[in-house]
């Protein structure tokens, strides 16, 4: 049973990592936490569901459709709202993205009804991995996550856009002088980050099977836990933190009780927040 739990944990951890890395790159570049992040995960799942249920597409076709739809939505939101949060105080950013979260969640509920929709798709037949039967979808999630992280590392370290991302993350004023278009970098990073969340949603939907408007809520909060544990803005750290959370959830669900599963993330979040080095809050003399 332990091996099952660990495998499960790695898979669900990959889901968390994939969603959270989106949040962390947005945080790095914009300096704000996207409180609506889980809603893009939800939107990905819903868009894919809509493609399968209403348009009769296959799962394979639904994946890119969902990504395109969510990218379009987040482009609009990024343009209208997120770009403007560049120099804004942190609580204004929280309020603004909280508002977006409400809008997205409830639009989905209004459009598709308040009941759970069943997701019909995905590759659920098991395949033999390391002596264990694992659903193909789960393997896919794990592999895709690794690929995405590899791609992100390359993007941030080697590509020109990655250099711009790092520049914006470090010093916005310098960017204005150097001619880096901060708003454009923020917009593109935002679309990228939210699309990764959507990808996670699309890939996970066959496993969780229920798709509903507020499914992204818990995801947002668990992403906090992951990025705090992994180090805000740290990409590889996010992967490890995601796996850690997934495995811990799995172990708790298996050995302690299923109802405590969601509490793991919050407990970890609080613990990590408490143990961050605080020092003097005035280490930077402000005047």
């Amino acid at each position, binding site marked *: 049973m332990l091996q099952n739990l660990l495998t499960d944990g790695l898979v669900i951890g990959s889901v968390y990592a994939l969603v959270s890395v989106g949040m962390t790159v947005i945080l790095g570049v914009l300096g704000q936490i996207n409180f609506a992040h889980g809603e893009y995960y939800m939107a990905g799942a819903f868009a894919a569901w809509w493609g399968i249920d209403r348009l009769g597409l296959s799962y394979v076709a639904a994946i890119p459709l969902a990504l395109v739809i969510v990218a379009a939505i987040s482009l609009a939101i990024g343009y209208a709202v997120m770009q403007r949060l560049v120099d804004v105080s*942190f609580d204004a950013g929280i*309020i*603004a993205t909280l*508002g977006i979260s409400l*809008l997205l969640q*409830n639009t989905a509920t209004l459009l598709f009804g308040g009941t759970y929709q069943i997701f019909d798709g995905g590759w659920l037949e098991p395949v033999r991995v390391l002596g264990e039967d694992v659903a193909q979808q789960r393997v896919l999630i794990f592999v895709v996550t690794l690929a995405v992280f590899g791609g992100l590392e390359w993007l941030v370290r080697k590509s020109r856009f990655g250099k711009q991302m790092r520049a914006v993350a470090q010093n916005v004023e310098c960017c204005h002088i150097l001619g880096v278009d901060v708003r454009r970098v923020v917009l593109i990073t935002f679309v990228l980050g939210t699309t990764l969340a959507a990808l996670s949603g699309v890939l996970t939907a066959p496993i969780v099977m229920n798709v509903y408007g507020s499914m992204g809520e818990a995801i947002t*909060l668990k992403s*906090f836990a992951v990025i705090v544990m992994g180090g805000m803005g740290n990409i590889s750290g996010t992967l490890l933190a995601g796996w850690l959370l997934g495995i811990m959830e799995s172990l708790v669900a298996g050995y302690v009780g299923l109802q405590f599963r969601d509490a793991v993330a919050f407990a970890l979040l609080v613990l990590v*927040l408490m143990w961050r080095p605080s020092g003097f809050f005035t280490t930077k003399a402000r005047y």
Partner: protein
Amino acid sequence: MSGIGSIGPHVAKPVAGGCLVVASLVLLPVVATSYQLGTLVVSMVFLLPALGLNLILGYTGMLSLAQMGFFGVGGYTSALLAMHFGTPFWLNFLAACVVPALVAIPLAIPALRLRHTSFVMCTIAFVFILESVSKNWVSVTRGDMGLSSVPRPRLGLWSGGFEVHTVVQYYYLGLLLCMLAVAALVAIVRSPAGRYMIAIREDEILAASVGGRTWHYRLAAFVLSAAFAGAGGSYYVHYITVISPTVFDPSYTNTVLVVVLGGGVGTISGPILGSVVFVALSEALRVAPELRMMIYGLILTVSVFAFPKGLIELLASVAKRAWPLRARRSHAD
């Protein structure tokens, strides 16, 4: 003079206006229908925690999303006391203010070390922790099923007394509680401590350099706001007569957030206006819950850019433009 941080000698006009408002509120049941009064009752349920949120966010500058967690604690406390001991309302209400405040202390102490976003995340985590407790402490809270048949408020000194059961009676009870709460908030905000809290909001380092014990005031604001939230929980649970873990749902938090941010942060009248406009009105218009949440979402997002200080500020600036002479005169003195 806008409301923010305005503690000054210009008190006469607001007091007169306040008396007028109070008088009309007291006479309202003569003209309003039961349904309309019911919407006001609901708005008062949210006004109480909103006043607390205003204290910690509007006056002290800390964005805490834990309010409704304490609302739930207060509600459960009040309900349990009434159900198990048959205690009169004033006692349940008092307990509902004190218990969340006590619970808030051990939560605040580690949380206050955090800054900005981490602090907000921590307060969100608190709500989930409290929700977890209410779901799993089944022997006391009956878990997901919650408590039902919560007794109605019994207004009496110890035994006997009068049981509130009509909407009009709830309305008056709520009016009394809200007036007490507003009075308490005014007392806090206009005290020297309140001045320190505003200073902390404006510039924490400067507040410390003028001798303000910033940590203590932040703790006080957090704990006091929990008491306000608990008060609302008590009023809520005896009106609805049921309580369950759904009270920890984000929709409750979002409602209070809109009441404060949309109404007017850092003012006394802001949340009052906010609760009437955003809660009573949407109840009265029977707006569907999803649509209401979407409107709240829109308000929150737009408010950040268009009216960060809420409706009150918006109205004040409109008034200033409509009556420029009066504005100029008050500037000169």
